[in-house]
């Protein structure tokens, strides 16, 4: 108890003695610091509004798969009028539809991968 009291008293004494050693910054230091910060701020180009990624994705998706469905619809209509209803259910035709859908899906995948790499490059 007495030891703690003495330690506390000694700390107080040291604090009082050392308080005189605190250095005051020069008048213009704050001005120098703030000027450098303002200058750096002015030099950094203002960031524009970030491109809405989700909006872009939907637009891209809509245009690509829209084209795909349009192609398929045209194909189905052509086949229906030229070869009749039976040909639409033939494995040959279904195979062609799957092939077209796969090509468009692959295109979609490539376009997404490309956007991802571009975005990554922009950030770094």
């Amino acid at each position, binding site marked *: 108890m007495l030891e703690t009291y003495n330690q506390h008293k000694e*700390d*107080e*004494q*040291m*604090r*009082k*003695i*050392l*308080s*005189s*050693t*605190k*250095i*005051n*910054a*020069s008048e213009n*230091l*704050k001005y*120098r*610091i*703030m000027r*450098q*910060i*303002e200058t*750096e*701020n002015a030099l950094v180009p203002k960031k524009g509004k970030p491109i809405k990624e989700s909006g872009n994705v939907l637009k891209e998706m809509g245009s690509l798969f829209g084209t795909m469905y349009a192609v398929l619809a045209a194909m189905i209509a052509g086949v229906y009028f030229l070869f009749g209803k039976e040909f639409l259910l033939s494995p040959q035709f279904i195979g062609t539809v799957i092939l077209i859908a796969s090509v468009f899906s692959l295109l979609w995948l490539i376009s997404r991968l490309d956007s991802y790499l571009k975005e990554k490059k922009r950030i770094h």
Partner: protein
Amino acid sequence: MNENQRVQQVLSGNSSAFAYFVEAYQDMAITIAHRICGNMQDAEDVVQESFVKAYRNLRSFRSDSKFSTWLYRIVYNTAITHSKTQMWIGSRETVVEEASQVADNALEINMDEMERKEIVSEVMQRMPKGDALLLTLYYLEDNPVKEIAKITGLNEPNVKVKLFRARKLFKEMVVSNYGIQITGS
């Protein structure tokens, strides 16, 4: 307005709000830098660089810790890099030995406030940098040992031991250099 709100203000683009932090911490920052660099010119450069670094990296400041601790850590690291000082490998023995030699010729003097300030400042300058820094952080800013450990990168028991030794050395140097017992008036 508390400090976290001010930080948010700066982060939202109001760079002039950072002036509050400069105003509030520049004196202590320069004291820390001066203890490490040893001269005012370098200390000012270090403080300027540190505040700019703090501003640039303000996003990485976690609001659960004290802004002052975070800033002083930056000042400490910048000052060490700037002065290429090895803080904790000091010449304590040399200083103590030197102090003892001077003590032989020391005179009893009556001190007034100014003299005492000069003596204390001189002793702080002659002490190993690490010891002077610990005393500064502990007594001038009332930093608890935990915060000092964060600033200096030492562990808490190590800070306690070093602080104890620094305090002892300070007293020894005052007594042996000037043949006086400093007491707070």
